[in-house]
């Protein structure tokens, strides 16, 4: 199903819909025609009857007054017409109605039509019958004034006859007045008529002068702009009084079709309207006969054969020539002293005395060409020199009548309504005639202006016309594009230039906004958005080259190698390490053990060095008084008991041998007491020291640093019992000792620098004059040297080297000397193995690293 997109709300609507179902906006463009409205009435088709009685209340007051007056005069005229019908004397149409010229009927071939107008329309001038029955004209004026519907009852045959155009005559560029067979004089009829009107004496009733129709074009435009700019409701009486500017002829269509108010009507038309009643009263039949030449324009007089011959000298009337030129002097209104002075075309342009019907409101003010004989119209060629303003009045072609020509805006702003300069279009063509013949239908299809639309909609609402289909102009205010400025709308492309039908077109590329809203296919669908070439086809089949396959195979090999087990070589390394360890062990056992068990003393003992730590310790031992209490602290582990006994034995042996001190043994390690017993009963067994007599064992001193400090402060309180649980403080070794300072010397046997530091730091301040000698292992000696250098330690015997010196000082070989060869061999062997092994490891390491690098 074809749909059309609403340019306002975007909703989809059926293709044949005219208004949006959602927002009731018009789906077709503004310039488009509503369904069926743009089509002309075909021959044989009865025009739609319009009921215009409802528009009565909205008519301007002056129109209603005029209509009322016309009704009142209708009865009088009816009697007068009956009398005039009986009278054979041809009389000038006495009706003052300005719409007398619009009383053209299709069947009235005797209608008075100005020759100049006939020539303009391209029809052959018709010899006017001067003895036209007045009653007939009067009757025609009546139905116009009363808004009758006689025109709708016009025979269709006659309309059809008038609708038949003659293209040959249209294409004929020769003006009608240039035709030699034309006897009717058309030379400057209007100008002459106007000039005579100037010279004619004023009528019986003086009339205020009216500006001539040859006003300046500038003023015309201003007048048009005023009409355009003034809203319907904003018209005021003051403006009416002040607007005395002459209204040009081309403005009459607008003024006639504008029922806004009396103020919108040009003054000259108002004047004419006001004077109409006076004309009826003042004009009498003898006066009309007395001044036929002056009261009637030349074009009326040209109906006679004599005048028509002379009127063919001029092609274009002067008023047409002077149109658009400098303004001329206003012509006196005396030319309009009688209704006969007014030409029919002017009468037609004049506002009707009564309110027109709806068709009249929408009808252009062009003269009713239908009143002309159809055969004359067919024969009348179109003048090529038709002015632009007349061309602007030209109705749109029947197939292009989507844009009604009724427009209050300035013609200059309507380019679609402006005639093409290159192709001058005749103002009145056969199409126009056809359209005018079907005025009701055409006018109904015409798009009325907004003010008229409002009036119509208002009246329609009041008359409960909900069931009636809306007119073309009624929805004008509801359409969104109507909000655009008029000049923008004027710039919109005419639908006639876009040969397509939105309803029938299935294209959905309708412009949704902007000045082109509602139009389809206005903008070309750019070819740049389309693919100029076919998309390249890609195959889904994998294409692998030889190189790709080679790389894939290599990748597979690498992945396979990752999961492949690699033989471990760690076993050989472990074997080498074990061999090395066993080799080292065997070498050490072989050399050191062999030398030790051999009991050789090949290696020279280290020589004594004066004033070293050993000599200091020896001097301390030498200074101890004989039999003095000496505190010997055993603070080493069983693992180092062999070294410690070897180092301590020469020094204690010297001391016990020389001074026979009373020894108090204290242990700061759990195994110290047992080690002390083993030491005394082992290496010092030769000294024959007895427990409880020459020495006492206080046992183990717990507490570490705190215990040492507390023992230094109060030894009796801290260690009240001996190792065997006896009261040792009353025994011989501890006689006279109550404090740490009571000991003559404190000999610390330790293999740990930390233990030496604790005793030095915690017991040093409390030891008084007691000397502190530290006998340490080789590993703890370097850490105790600072205390020796600082004087906190009075002597230090460090390792087997110092023990050998003490033995040398004792003059008695001991364990130190017995161990010295094995000790020396072991040191040298270790040094050699480190050197050789280090070099081997260095080379092996470099080779291994190089091999690893090569593997990587």
């Amino acid at each position, binding site marked *: 199903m074809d749909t059309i997109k609403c340019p306002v709300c975007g909703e989809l609507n059926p293709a044949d819909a005219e208004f949006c179902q959602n927002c009731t906006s018009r789906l077709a463009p503004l310039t488009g025609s509503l369904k069926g409205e743009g089509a002309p009435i075909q021959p044989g088709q009865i025009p739609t009857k319009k009921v215009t009685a409802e528009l009565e209340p909205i008519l301007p007051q002056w129109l209603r007054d005029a209509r009322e007056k016309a009704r009142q005069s209708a009865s009088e005229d009816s009697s007068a017409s009956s009398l005039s019908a009986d009278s054979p004397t041809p009389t000038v149409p006495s009706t003052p109605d300005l719409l007398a010229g619009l009383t053209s009927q299709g069947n009235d071939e005797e209608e008075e039509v100005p020759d100049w107008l006939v020539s303009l329309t391209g029809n052959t001038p018709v010899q006017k019958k001067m003895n036209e029955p007045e009653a007939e004209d009067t009757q025609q004026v009546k139905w116009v004034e009363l808004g009758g519907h006689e025109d709708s009852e016009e025979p269709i045959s006659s309309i059809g006859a008038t609708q038949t155009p003659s293209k040959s005559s249209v294409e004929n560029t020769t003006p009608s007045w240039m035709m030699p067979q034309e006897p009717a004089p058309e030379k400057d009829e209007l100008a002459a008529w106007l000039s005579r009107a100037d010279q004619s004496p004023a009528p019986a009733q003086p009339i205020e002068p009216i500006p001539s129709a040859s006003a300046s074009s500038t003023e015309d435009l201003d007048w048009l702009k005023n009409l355009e700019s003034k809203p319907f409701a904003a018209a005021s009486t003051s403006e009416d009084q002040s607007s005395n500017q002459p209204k040009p002829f081309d403005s009459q269509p607008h003024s006639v079709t504008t029922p806004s108010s009396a103020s919108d009507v040009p003054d000259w038309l108002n004047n004419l309207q006001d004077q109409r009643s006076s004309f009826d009263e003042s004009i009498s039949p003898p006066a009309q006969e007395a001044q036929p030449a002056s009261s009637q324009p030349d074009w009326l007089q040209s109906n006679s054969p004599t005048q028509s011959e002379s009127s063919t000298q001029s092609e274009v009337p002067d008023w047409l020539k002077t149109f658009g030129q400098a303004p001329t002097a206003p012509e006196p209104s005396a030319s309009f002293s009688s209704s006969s002075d007014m030409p029919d075309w002017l009468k037609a342009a004049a506002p009707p005395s009564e309110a027109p019907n709806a068709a009249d409101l929408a009808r252009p003010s062009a003269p009713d060409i239908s009143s002309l004989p159809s055969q004359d119209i067919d024969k009348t060629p179109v003048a090529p020199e038709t002015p632009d303003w007349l061309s602007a009045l030209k109705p749109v072609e029947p197939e292009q009548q989507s844009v009604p020509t009724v427009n209050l805006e300035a013609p200059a702003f309507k380019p679609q309504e402006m005639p093409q300069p290159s192709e001058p279009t005749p103002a009145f063509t056969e199409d126009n005639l056809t359209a005018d013949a079907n005025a009701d239908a055409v006018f109904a299809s015409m798009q009325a202006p907004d003010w008229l639309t409002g009036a119509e909609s208002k009246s329609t609402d009041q008359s409960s016309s909900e069931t009636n289909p809306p007119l073309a102009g009624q929805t004008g205010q509801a359409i969104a594009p109507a909000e655009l400025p008029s000049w923008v709308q004027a710039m919109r492309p005419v639908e006639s230039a876009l040969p397509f039908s939105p309803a029938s077109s299935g294209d959905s590329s309708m412009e949704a906004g902007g000045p082109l809203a509602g139009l389809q296919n206005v903008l070309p669908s750019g070819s740049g958005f389309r693919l100029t070439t076919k998309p390249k086809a890609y195959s889904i089949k994998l294409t692998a080259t030889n190189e790709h396959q080679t790389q894939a195979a290599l990748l597979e090999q690498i992945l396979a190698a990752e999961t492949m087990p690699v033989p471990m070589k760690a076993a050989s390394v472990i074997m080498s390490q074990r061999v090395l360890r066993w080799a080292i062990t065997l070498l050490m056992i072989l050399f050191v053990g062999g030398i030790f068990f051999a009991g050789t003393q090949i290696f*020279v003992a280290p020589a004594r060095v004066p004033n070293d730590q050993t000599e200091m310790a020896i001097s301390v031992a030498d200074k101890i008084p004989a039999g003095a209490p000496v505190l010997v602290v055993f603070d080493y582990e069983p693992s180092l008991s062999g070294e410690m006994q070897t180092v301590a034995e020469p020094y204690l042996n010297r001391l016990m041998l020389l001074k026979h001190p009373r020894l108090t043994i204290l242990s700061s390690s759990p195994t110290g007491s*047992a080690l002390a017993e083993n030491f005394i009963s082992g290496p010092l067994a030769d000294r024959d020291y007895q427990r409880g007599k020459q020495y006492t064992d206080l046992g183990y001193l717990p507490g570490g640093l705190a215990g040492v400090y507390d023992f230094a402060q109060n030894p009796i309180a*801290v260690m009240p019992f001996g190792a*065997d649980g006896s009261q040792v403080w009353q025994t011989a070794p501890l006689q006279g000792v109550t404090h740490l300072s009571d000991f003559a010397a404190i000999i610390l046997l330790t293999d740990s620098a930390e233990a030496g*530091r604790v005793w030095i730091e915690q017991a040093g301040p409390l030891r008084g004059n007691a000397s502190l000698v530290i006998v340490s292992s080789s590993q703890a000696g370097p850490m105790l040297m600072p205390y020796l250098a600082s004087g906190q330690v009075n002597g230090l015997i460090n390792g087997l080297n110092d023990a050998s010196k003490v033995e040398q000082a004792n003059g008695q070989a001991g364990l130190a000397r017995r161990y010295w060869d094995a*000790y020396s061999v072991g040191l040298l062997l270790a040094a050699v193995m*480190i050197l050789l092994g*280090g070099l081997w490891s260095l080379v092996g*390491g470099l080779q291994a690293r190089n091999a690893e690098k090569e593997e990587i």
Partner: protein
Amino acid sequence: MRYIAVAVAIVAGLIVLIGYFVPAVAGVQDVLLNWAIILAGVAALVGVFNLISVHGDKIRRREKGSVYSAILLICLFASFIFGLALGPDNPNMRLLVSAVIVPVEATLMALLAVTLLYASIRLLRRRTDLMSIVFLLTAVLMLIASATLPFGEISPLNDLVRPWFQQVLALGGARGILIGVALGTLTTGLRVLFGTDRPYGGN
């Protein structure tokens, strides 16, 4: 409870510290130090109980090496029983120390000598850098300088190199270490006094 523990620790530390400078507080200081010695002895006893518990669990669970745990517990209880019965001065008890503990530990120390020698040989294979070489050369020099030759001392090494190494390099390094230890001890003591460090628990 936590605050109480911290308060007791701080007060005890301050009293002992003040006792070094104020003789009047020395009595209180002695009491506290005696308490500390007793607690240290009890801690050794607690350690023995802990040792019994750990190895007892291993024996119950029949874990790997539970036989050695059983031997350890048997020896422990035997020594304790014999020690109580015979006393520490009994020759059999001395024999237990001199015949078992001392040789075993001395053997371990001898193994340490072989291990250190082996490590020195493998050092350059594991890490070949300047410090490793310096370390090895220093060790070699000290070993050689500490020993003597059959026909006499290695005079430059024994007379110059070895004393210089001991009196200069070793003494300087040792002093630095001792100063660092002293500062660390001071800092630790202050932190304990201020309650920052709570080695007694009471986080």
